[in-house]
């Protein structure tokens, strides 16, 4: 299983773009990269998933370089409500995708 490394915490201000980078040096060919968001007293919520290059949805963008050894979650124009813990997961589908969470990145958005 590919191990992931993320910053423990990050601070930002409202309206700024936030980029959270995740390192996964031993990612396997079949592995996808998935990000979840967790608010206090709630379960994690799926944000975005990708395999290579760039993926964008209504919430965030995910940038994956060609070597796939890292990925960056980009949150455009954050608000106070984006204060949460963000988890980067790496794994393959089928045959037992082991959805293993690390400690995540605690993002604090200030006014």
């Amino acid at each position, binding site marked *: 299983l590919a191990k992931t490394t993320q910053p423990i915490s990050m601070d930002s201000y409202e309206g700024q773009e936030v980029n959270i980078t995740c390192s996964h040096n031993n990612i396997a060919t079949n592995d996808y990269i998935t990000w979840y968001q967790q608010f206090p*007293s709630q379960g994690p919520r*799926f944000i975005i998933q990708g395999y290579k290059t760039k993926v964008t949805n209504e919430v965030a963008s995910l940038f994956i370089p060609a070597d796939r050894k890292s990925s960056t979650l980009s949150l455009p124009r954050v608000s106070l409500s984006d204060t949460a813990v963000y988890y980067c997961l790496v794994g393959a589908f089928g045959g037992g995708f082991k*959805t293993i969470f690390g400690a995540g990145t605690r993002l604090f958005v200030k006014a």
Partner: protein
Amino acid sequence: EAGVVQSPRYKIIEKKQPVAFWCNPISGHNTLYWYRQNLGQGPELLIRYENEEAVDDSQLPKDRFSAERLKGVDSTLKIQPAELGDSAVYLCASSLGGNNEKLFFGSGTQLSVL
């Protein structure tokens, strides 16, 4: 569409007592997960079901933890007897399974063992 439903929301028990958590996954989701989350840490997988079969229970402490998923729908996670170190949030999640591993989580059950 209803999300993953868990109950109870909170549970306080004394050590050595039994406790059970219940989970109702999203309709049609074949895969069900139980996670444990300690304060300040990410969720830790305990067990994963494909329909009614437990396909990954390698992280489940089998001396005191048990789980079942009758008829491949609802699931129950039990601890007997509970220990102080079992205090945590127990999360249930479900997914369509197969090549779609987007997980949907419930709000969890916060267990306090005194």
